[in-house]
């Protein structure tokens, strides 16, 4: 039974990997609609680019909230709220936002200085 417990970290790493991949796919899909290389180039598109840029920066700042959440879960505080199911959701959102922010930042930066 003790060995069965090791499924938990393996599951978390698997969830992280899969949702990170999903985040990168989402970022790529967004770049097809919004961004310097998008098909639609107009005033509306420029506004969308600015909004997407600001949202991405806000997201990267908001991701700091994951640090206390994970620490509280590991320390065993707020067990009513930070349940095991919540931990899986938290890891999924953490990985998804990582994929979106990292992928879109790198793509936007390289296309800006080209």
């Amino acid at each position, binding site marked *: 039974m003790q060995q069965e417990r090791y499924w938990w970290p*393996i599951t*978390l790493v698997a969830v992280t990997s899969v949702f990170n991949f999903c985040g990168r796919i989402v970022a790529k899909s967004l770049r097809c609609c919004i961004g310097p290389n998008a098909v639609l180039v107009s005033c509306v598109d420029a506004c969308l680019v600015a909004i997407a840029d600001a949202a991405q920066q806000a997201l990267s700042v908001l991701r700091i909230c994951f*640090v206390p959440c994970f620490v509280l879960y590991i320390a065993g505080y707020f067990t009513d709220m930070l349940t095991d199911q919540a931990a899986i959701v938290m890891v999924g959102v*953490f990985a998804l936002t990582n994929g979106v922010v990292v992928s879109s930042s*790198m793509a936007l930066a390289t296309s800006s*200085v080209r």
Partner: protein
Amino acid sequence: MLAGQATSTVLVSGLRVGAKVLLNSAPNMGGAAFLIVAAVLQLACAMATAYVARTPFVRYHCARAASRALLDDETATQSAFSTYSDDLLSPPEAGWSPPKRGFFSVIRPVWRQALSLWLALVVTFSLFPGEITSMWMHDPQGDFSILRVRACAVVLGF
């Protein structure tokens, strides 16, 4: 490149889940099998990288990129030189060198993206893999067979 990197992490997770499913009764063997297969895969990737760099397709595109960079440098040199002289055909003065892009001239238009990327990676590598792999279930009496099915479903179903 980014999608390929993310795909490799999914494949490694699938490999770990597969090794644990097949060798669940012998955890040390499962861990050893995972590490050996991962090492073989890394070796194969290194050899494939060395092979791909020698293919005509990659060599053609590398040569094309190098010629394009050379052309860009010549254009930059000409535009910089035209600010000093109207006659582009006259040779530049001795000791004159083309303008080089400094760190700040490159980072200035992209500092916001660079900052958000830095912040995202700081948060990510603060928590993953160290903290996430040290998380344990609060309810250890949970149904691990369901968890096992979920782990397989997440990777294989994806």
